[in-house]
């Protein structure tokens, strides 16, 4: 069936200067079962003021890559075998542990999925937020506490002045995640990495947190790297989307184009397998098979065993990530047959 031409999409927003560049990153884990190749040549660029989503399912390497950027990978068993992580052109992977720790505290901050285990249960949240100011800014106890209250206000925790002396367990899941966001923003970082920040939350609370993140990002102009598996969450906030599969980028695009006309069969498969409130009665088309075993990656294109469009070439030759569409769109896809995928369809 010929698809109706999609309405013209707005030009992708002009990005600010490159902030964080990940280049050809390779991470593997040595296990008794063999070498698990979690990240296999990942590359992306986050610009100032931009929200970039790393979209992938479990085992896609999205969280491992984030930990590598943060310098939080346990080594061993993990090993970064190749690549660079540049912040303003400076390779973080070449820093000493002490230098990396300094960057991590002040210039790159992270929001984790599980706020309850990321917070210390025996210290008040005010103490934990204030600690950042005491350690990194040399503030006194009283000043640090005042800054903590300010930050809690800023992430819209009601009655912040009263709650600053409460312990993490006295907060609900959504409020704890706000505390995590407050801590991430405390030292005005240039980059915030949010790893599945709402996955543990209920849908009504998720909406509150995503709105908060988007508002704060606009206020501060921080670069936000959002790591998630949720196509809905991504659509609501991301400027650009990097789709990962088996530790590599399979597609990269601005958000509207990715959803309107996916260029990689995996992206297309994801979009067709999500039930949507706004499209009742549509039969889901699942992606067959399971995500790959990272200890035994398929040859050629890692997605080929699950791909309906796969041919012999896909098993032999790994497709490079190449530009698709008009140059101004700045999209790319890693598929030998991208042209067929895009030709076959606008909206799924």
């Amino acid at each position, binding site marked *: 069936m010929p698809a109706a031409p999609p309405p013209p*999409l707005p030009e992708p927003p002009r990005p600010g200067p490159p902030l964080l560049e990940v280049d050809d990153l390779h991470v593997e884990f040595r296990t008794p079962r063999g070498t698990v190749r979690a990240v296999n040549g990942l590359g992306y660029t986050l610009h100032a003021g931009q929200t970039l989503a790393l979209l992938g399912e479990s085992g896609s390497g999205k969280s491992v890559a984030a930990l590598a950027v943060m310098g939080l990978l346990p080594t061993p068993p993990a090993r970064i075998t190749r690549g660079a992580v540049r912040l303003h052109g400076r390779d973080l992977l070449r820093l000493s542990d002490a230098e990396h720790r300094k960057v991590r505290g002040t210039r790159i901050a992270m929001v984790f999925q599980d706020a309850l285990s990321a917070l210390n249960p025996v210290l008040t949240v005010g103490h934990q937020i204030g600690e950042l100011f005491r350690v990194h800014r040399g503030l006194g106890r009283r000043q640090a506490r005042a800054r903590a209250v300010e930050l809690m206000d800023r992430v819209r925790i009601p009655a912040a002045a009263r709650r600053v002396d409460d312990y993490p367990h006295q907060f609900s899941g959504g409020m704890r995640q706000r505390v995590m966001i407050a801590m991430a923003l405390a030292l005005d970082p240039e980059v915030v990495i949010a790893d599945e920040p709402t996955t543990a939350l209920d849908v009504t609370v998720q909406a509150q947190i995503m709105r908060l993140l988007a508002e704060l990002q606009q206020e501060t102009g921080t670069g936000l790297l959002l790591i998630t598996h949720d196509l809905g969450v991504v659509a*609501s906030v991301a400027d650009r989307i990097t789709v990962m599969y088996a530790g590599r980028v399979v597609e990269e695009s601005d958000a509207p184009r990715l959803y309107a006309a996916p260029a990689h069969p995996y992206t297309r498969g994801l979009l067709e*397998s999500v039930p949507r409130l706004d499209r009742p009665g549509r039969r889901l088309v699942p992606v067959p098979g399971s995500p790959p075993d990272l200890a035994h990656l398929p040859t050629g294109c890692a997605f080929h065993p699950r791909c309906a469009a796969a041919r012999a070439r896909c098993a032999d030759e790994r497709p490079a990530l190449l530009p698709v569409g008009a140059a101004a769109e700045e999209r790319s896809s890693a598929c030998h047959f991208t042209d067929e995928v895009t030709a076959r369809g606008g909206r799924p």
Partner: protein
Amino acid sequence: MSTGAPDPTDPNPPEPDRPVLRVRGLAKHYPTGGGPFRRRGTGAVRAVDGVDLELHRGETLGLVGESGCGKSTLASVLMGAERPSAGTVEVDGQDLFALDRRQLRAVRRRMQMVLQDPYSSLDPRMTIGRIVAEPLAIHPEVLPRERRPAKVAELLRLVGLDPAHADRYPHQLSGGQRQRVGIARALALGPELLLCDEPVSALDVSVQAQVLNLLADLRERLGLACLFIAHDLAVVQYLCDRIAVMYLGRIVETGTREQVYGSPYHPYTRALLAAVPVPDPTLRGAQVALLEGDLPSPADPPSGCRFRTRCPQAQQRCAQEEPALTVRPGTDHPTACHFPLPAQVPPPRDPATGKAP
């Protein structure tokens, strides 16, 4: 309470209009207090607090709600894992909690459960074949031993697995395959009623659709009645004919899928639907009123309507009088709200912040 409960071994098909599952006034309270530092018997967590449900043959009822609403407690009572504090659960007209052991065993054959976590719900030391055959070993009267391997192969094929998988162990399978094994086990005794508690929420998106389609097909082919408990509103919409929305131990709205999703009357249902992010960036930007705050504690629910503390429409009456779940003037399905919202189809919108659309 049903009158003249039939013999559970009665082979006659039950009357067509009798629900497979009927839940009346069900409550499950967990007493709090006790312990060395507290006064005894100070109160109770009212996890489920007066729930009525009916499920008919071949029908799928979706029970949705956020964490803490009581949906999983309800599931464990329905499976007989816990006794209710009040109310009845009837399966084919027989009260589950009034039966003796032998009768209960017979009824249990008719209702089976599919659990959320395919990693922890399968015994890692048992082969897939033994796991699927286990219900047949527990109910040996169903099938003679020598015919069980063939039945296992048939069940594995039914859920889209290779019968050769029978010799493998759970850790050799992927998450999606494990959930298929869980479904095959649930179908081993030929149940009429399947209770599914978050059956796809632990699975990856690309695999989730496989299991959803499998459940939809099986339900159709086998004429199963399904109670589908989930927090994902889009998943429930995909699979369910009727919907019940739960909040703090109570059902606040129920109706057909078209009724509940098309014109939700309860402010909670509407807020819940509005909060679901739609995977379409072009819909971004419309400002949606989000719910404030969090779920109150079920140990100390608000007076009157339990939703009133978060409800943008709440008025004085809501604090004083608990609204009953009934069809109100101007509405076409039951809601527990004194002031149901006017019918409207909420446009698909996105909850993220934003500029004008």
